[in-house]
């Protein structure tokens, strides 16, 4: 989150992908850093037990939202 908040503050649109379990922590951290409007892209948790193909499927599912987060 530090990096995403940093890049946004420097004028670089950033999409940070987090798993659902991390959403609250990510939002709390962004708020603590002063980026109250920072929004993440959320994928299902957990990641670590998934196969490569299952992780790739999460990317397919999240892709439109990633694009939406980066463009107007």
């Amino acid at each position, binding site marked *: *989150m*530090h*990096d*995403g*908040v*940093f*890049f*946004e*503050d*420097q*004028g*670089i*649109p*950033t*999409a*940070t*992908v*987090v*798993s659902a*379990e*991390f959403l*609250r*922590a*990510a939002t*709390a951290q962004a*708020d*603590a*850093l*002063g*980026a*109250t*409007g*920072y929004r993440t892209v959320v*994928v299902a*948790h*957990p*990641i*670590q037990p*998934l196969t*490569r193909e299952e*992780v*790739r499927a*999460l*990317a*397919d599912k999240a*892709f439109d939202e*990633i*694009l939406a987060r*980066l*463009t*107007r």
Partner: protein
Amino acid sequence: MTHWGDTPLVLSPEHAAIIAGAGWHKSDVRRFLFEPRDEENPMTEYLDPTDSVAVPRQIAPRPASLDGKVVTLLDISKAKGDHLLDRIEELLRERTGVATIVRKTKPTFARPAPGPLRQEILGATDVVIEALAD
């Protein structure tokens, strides 16, 4: 936060003194942190341990599309994040008009990217996609 393993908490003497000064014992801290408050969300509240924020941060203006843009994919070095980013890279090439895709990797997910890496990305990209915190 995690489904695996135990969660230890270590307090510095200064913080322990503040908490003890408020009349809390170790058992109070343990109860506050670890006892579920509802079935769905054992941790229903996050407390901000940092000082108040002095400077609000900006959210960057967005381009209309990624056509002709340089996109940096920043891998935070958590296992399997590379699979996600590999697929995102393919999708960017298939479905958008991005000019260039740059892959960068943080040395560890546990810390912000080192200053030189941040500056390198900043000077050479239009947008960043960062993954995967899980």
